[in-house]
């Protein structure tokens, strides 16, 4: 069946899927399509995944399997302020796990989740290349260095003030 019940993907992504369908083994472009969607929307919604499944003729269950297998794909929308705690080796030995816990308890959400008001989300990264400043946290484009758990409430407050 070619019937697509919900149309919510933008034309450029639909066009990209159509181009993929012209290729041999078109189903192998699934990850590339998901990358594009996450690039534009910041995450993968069920509606988007179902539409990809129908347009690319890959089972929804398979799309869902791929999207949940790779940590890169986000299945919930990112917060307006995306907190990313580096858990690379240097940051970790300097206590990044405690920084992560502080964010989780302060925001009342777990890693990978977004606050109900949509303002904050927590994710982790694996080394961003500034180990001398460990432990490092980025919130959107801003980098915070030598972060301690006690600084976390103030960081959150400052970010929230930006609106």
């Amino acid at each position, binding site marked *: 069946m070619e019937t697509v019940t919900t149309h919510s993907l933008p034309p450029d992504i639909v066009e990209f899927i159509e181009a993929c369908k012209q290729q041999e083994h078109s189903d192998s472009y699934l990850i590339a399509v998901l990358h594009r969607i996450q690039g534009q929307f910041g995450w993968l919604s069920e509606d988007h995944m179902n539409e990809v499944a129908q347009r690319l*003729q890959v089972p929804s269950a398979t799309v869902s399997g791929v999207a949940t297998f790779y940590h890169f794909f986000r299945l919930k929308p990112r917060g307006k302020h995306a907190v990313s705690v580096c858990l690379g080796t240097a940051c970790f030995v300097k206590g990044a796990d405690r920084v992560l816990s502080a964010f989780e308890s302060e925001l009342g959400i777990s890693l990978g989740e977004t606050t109900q008001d949509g303002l904050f989300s927590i994710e982790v990264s694996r080394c961003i290349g500034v180990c001398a400043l460990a432990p490092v946290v980025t919130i959107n484009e801003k980098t915070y260095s030598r972060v301690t758990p006690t600084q976390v409430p103030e960081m959150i407050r400052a970010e929230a003030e930006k609106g």
Partner: protein
Amino acid sequence: MKSVELIIDNTTVSVPEGTTIMQAAETLGVKIPRLCYHPDLSLEGACRVCIVEVEGVENFLPSCATAVRDGMKIKTNSPQIREARRDLVELILDNHPKECQTCERDANCELQDLAYAMGVRERLFEGKRKDHPKESSSTSVIRDANKCILCRRCVRVCSEVQGIHNLSQLHRGFDTVVAPAHEGAMADSVCIACGQCINVCPVAAFMEKNSTEDVWAALADPKKHVVVQIAPSIRAAIGEGFGLPVGTPATGQTVTALRRLGFDQIFDTNFGADLTILEEANEFLMRVEKGEKLPMLTSCSPGWIKFMEHFYPEMIPHASSCKSPMSMLSALIKTYYAEKQAMDPDDIYVVAVMPCVAKKFEIQRPEHMMDNGMPYTDAVLTTRELIWMVKAYGIDFANLPEGDFDTPLGFSSGAADIFGTTGGVMEAALRTAVETLTGETLEKIDFEVVRGVTGIKEASLEVDGKTINIAVSNGLNNAKILLDKVKSGEKQYHLIELMACPGGCIGGGGQPYPPQDYHVLDPEVLKMRARALYDIDKAKTVRRSHQNPYIQRLYKEYLGRAGSEKAHELLHTTYEAREPRGIK
């Protein structure tokens, strides 16, 4: 083909190139222990239980997925292999609930058998346990991910045999879970409720929704008049549950067992099958005359019907409007029979014993409710559930005397018995349609061309100067192949019989787990069950549905003629397009 010589356990064996080590060992009568492997599904290589030692190779190799090579020296049972295999099974057990005594598959479980055979006699470790909720939203199939051992047989059968692709492995590592897309509810998924995931599951991660408690309660209720009907394919398979050889027809014992269980009337879905043939043949001949809505598609299999509604909604006008034999009979029990007995239909409790879990879905469809909102069929038991009830009661099934169905709704022609196997509905329809078209009595009523458990059969028949093209399919991947040819115009058929399950109802999702020495979906088992039905048909004097005297009387007394207004009201139904998700 080039042959390869190798040594397995000090015995030289010669097998064709491309044979796997597992297959080569089987030629020596050695069945290497296995778990995720299934001969009819793609290779998975996930469980590693079938590992063997190959001289000169450092690691143990999975025998299911390793092809033989010239000069290989293989040990299937060295002390190292025995220990490694036992360790592997123990590791699976460490994450598996210790619930054998309360599990529905106790004594019927491949993991349990394996643990026994590997000599696991103590549990050395307490592994981490999964904590997923039991998913019981579906009318038919319950998913219990805590018991799942991730062999992926269900994922494979759902996509490779049935073409549904409803299941996949989601997440990763210890969190891996087999589920529909987005871990959605089975009830909201494209699951067609065929139950083949239940059949192939080695443990109890997929089970049918159990209705035995409801049936016990009805049987114990003095206010209820409890009527039972059994599907054609039950008689060919139920004996396996009591140690009878595969393919033993057990119609009479089943009737006696049902009487001992306390059912008030024992009717036969076969009667509904004969009636289906009259209604369906009439519908077919009208369509042929008008040249419209051809090919006509059969409508007995509720799994196939839901599949059509999801994936081929444009074919809905082609489907026969006939209800299934079960639903036809249930409708008659609560109208025709109730009136004859001067009973209130609400006091009648109709139980249908079916080889099928999709029937549990069918009875809850709004089209199969009476005007007052009560269902025509109150409960569906699978063959497995009935076997359990008979055992629970303590009935010695194998040594029961043969009983007879009650009349009028228990008498049937041989044409009805063969409904239970792929090609049977077609053959039964042809016996009636051809004689109706030509007005002559057929000399030979065995239509061999539509027999056999292969996935797709096609034939062209010359009838009354017309060519009738027919096709028969079982397993829904085969339905896709046929329907795509119809849609593209590559093939023109007049009539297509479609069954969701491999082999038809004899291979249904509610049939007994295979006895020792056979595997699930084993074509040998299907052939023997089919043979039992053809033997029953052959032994009957009435072998044409239209010659069933009780059917003739029913039309005379109650329905008028085939396709009458009354017949349409009680015996015909409608279908609805459902949201397709993912893939055609």
